[in-house]
């Protein structure tokens, strides 16, 4: 009975999301542990360790400032890993996508399904960080929960960008460039670990166009109550990265699979 709805609204990509979910469910606990452990270790280690030597930033303790950034960083990482390594193994090593388009599915259904799936994994990582923030007493009340749609949007932005890389990749080695030249610099230019104001103006300007910058500003505003300069611009930038990323990926994967 759900089938006509799926057809009518072009929701066939949900089959791809469903397939990935079924696989994920098998390794759910290991996967969640991996997703959460890394940012938590950073948060506790840097937040308390380094934080002890830090002044307050915008009137908040360093660990709070860091937590707002790590929330976005962990979403970015989750989406990126899923859209690069996991998606690429389904494209190349396992030929899963090829099998799917032999059925009445299109390459666009596959890409959009993967895009949403990677963003959902990012949302899960973000949720884990938010829970940690509650547990550590860094956030209170229900207002911080409003950050979750933003985390999904960050996920969509980075999964769209990641899928572009995947559609161009010949091998896993290709992704090292993306990490070294895009993801790692982004982490330092977007105000995850320290305020961007500490950086030279030229570098600040580069940071201003990066999606993670806008994600971090939104996340701190919504979870910690830091005043937001231009929240709708932040949303717009993230949405642009997300939609341009997925649109370009669909084109590239179409060309690659339907050669």
């Amino acid at each position: 009975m759900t089938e006509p709805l799926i057809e009518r609204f072009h929701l066939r990509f949900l089959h791809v999301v469903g397939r990935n979910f079924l696989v994920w469910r098998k390794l759910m606990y290991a996967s969640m542990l991996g997703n959460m452990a890394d940012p938590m270790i950073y948060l506790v280690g840097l937040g308390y360790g380094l934080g002890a030597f830090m002044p307050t930033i915008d009137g908040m303790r360093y660990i709070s400032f860091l937590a707002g950034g790590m929330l976005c960083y962990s979403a970015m990482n989750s989406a990126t890993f899923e859209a690069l390594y996991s998606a690429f193994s389904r494209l190349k090593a396992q030929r899963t996508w090829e099998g799917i388009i032999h059925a009445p599915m299109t390459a666009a259904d596959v890409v959009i399904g993967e895009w949403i799936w990677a963003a959902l994994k990012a949302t899960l990582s973000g949720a884990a960080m938010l829970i940690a923030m509650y547990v550590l007493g860094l956030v209170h009340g229900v207002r911080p929960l409003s950050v979750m749609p933003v985390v999904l949007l960050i996920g969509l932005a980075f999964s769209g960008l990641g899928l572009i890389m995947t559609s161009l990749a010949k091998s896993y080695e290709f992704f090292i460039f993306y990490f070294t030249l895009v993801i790692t610099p982004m982490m330092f230019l977007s105000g995850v670990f320290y305020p961007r104001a500490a950086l030279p103006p030229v570098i600040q300007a580069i940071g201003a166009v990066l999606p993670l910058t806008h994600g971090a500003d939104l996340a701190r505003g919504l979870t910690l109550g830091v005043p937001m300069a231009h929240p709708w611009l932040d949303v717009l930038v993230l949405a642009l990265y997300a939609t341009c990323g997925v649109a370009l990926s669909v084109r590239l994967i179409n060309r690659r699979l339907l050669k």
Partner: protein
Amino acid sequence: MLQVRGLRKSYSGTEVVRGVSFGVAAGECFGLLGPNGAGKTTTLRCCLGLTRSDGGTITLAGLPVPAAAREARARTGVCPQFDNLDPDFTVSENLVVYGRYFGIGRRVMLERVPRLLEFAGLEDKAGARLDTLSGGMKRRLTLARALVNDPQIIFLDEPTTGLDPQARHLIWDRLKSLTASGRTLILTTHFMDEAERLCDRVAIMDRGSLIAEDAPRKLISAQIEPHVVEIYGDGVRDFARDIAPRHAQRVELTGETAFCYCRDTAPLLEALHGYGSLRALSRAANLEDVFIKLTGRDIRD
């Protein structure tokens, strides 16, 4: 079930399919044969709407391709050349998940799975992990997976490549049971014995064009002498040049073997008695002889 007219496809200036036309009737098993790089797989991909052709028309299961390729694929089964089963799922999960892509719900699929597993001879492997299956089992599972939507037409791209003889025979047996149940099969292969055994009709493709098309028996009788004597051993070159042409309609020397194509083998075998160093194998002409005659003996890479 399938009509292809004037199909053309080029890759960066090289035309790999050059105006191919053929039709496959319901219930027929049709074989597309050809050396590597002949354009077989590209032709199949075009038929499924997975590659956009540069010219020609295709009708699959009554629907125009590529315009309605997705709808046509909903009525079609595909058994690909390279294994793309889902290694993250068990045997039966592979079938259930693949059914989703056809919009077949979990409950319906769970009813179909036992019959599909029985077809594939994998009844006792329902919960097995994929990496515990042999190559033959995986191929049978791929074949069963191509049937999740109960298609009337099934494409098979080199269905037995890489399998041992036992596994090949089992696949052939399964394919015969599919044709017996009235389904249409379209397969590519470069095993001529496979084509001769399974196909009602074959088309031989070379360098992007169809160069012959008929029932295997008819092709053999129309294209080639009924008997072949293969001769090898010391002095085979002299024999092939001087003696064999007197008794055989055609003689081809390849490496150290002379292939003599005869209407009657008796005079040639008689003549061989005087050459103790030569050994001979006399056999009926087969589809491979036709294939070699039409496509040549050169290696294609």
